[in-house]
């Protein structure tokens, strides 16, 4: 299994801070999520970190077993 991690209000939308998913191409992983969540995760302002490292975009990501993919919405001001 792999893990998706949701930060900020994405955690509210997902109903949890993280979610175990089957490994595979990200497009296939997201297709199994509720559509409103998948759309929110693909918002261009949402940054993505794969195993703790920021990556460019979601297009080419293929999740392998044990991977952790974090979705980081814009951080709060303050």
């Amino acid at each position, binding site marked *: 299994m792999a893990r998706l*991690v949701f*930060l*900020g*209000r994405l*955690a*509210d939308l997902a109903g949890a801070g993280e979610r175990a998913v089957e490994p595979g191409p990200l497009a296939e992983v997201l297709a199994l999520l509720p559509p409103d969540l998948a759309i929110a995760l693909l918002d261009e302002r949402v940054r993505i*970190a794969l*195993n*703790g490292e*920021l990556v460019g975009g979601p297009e080419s990501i293929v999740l392998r077993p044990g991977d*952790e993919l*974090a979705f*980081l*919405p*814009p*951080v*709060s*001001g*303050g």
Partner: protein
Amino acid sequence: MATEVHLLTHPFHPGQYVGPFTTAHPGLGGVCTFVGEVRGENGVEALELSHYEPLTLPGMKALAQRAVARFGLMGILVVHRSGVMLPGEPIVCVSAVASHRRAAFDAVDFAMDHLKSDSWFWKREKRCGTWRWIDPRPDDYAARDRW
């Protein structure tokens, strides 16, 4: 030790960090310290900061090292809370020691601007028993872009 970064999940007294940090740098000329606290205005009952550990700590350490290099500091201390905080509790404490005042001042200002705009912290506020997420403010980016 040139940089000291702490991410805490419990309340802290800034003096307990700033005192030993200052003592650890004999020969300094000046120490500038900023402490930000949870404001209780507008009926805020609590503030919660969440973060993504694998990015937060390395990001704060990198920021501390950039500040040391850029302003020629003797050292910098960054202490940041996460979790649920009540009004009056310190959220962040940044302290810079340098040979001269200007460097210490500018380094703390720089670190605070970047902590606010670049750090991976998400905030929500509790008012009247209801939690509400806080969105980014455009002037945080403007503050960062001063540098």
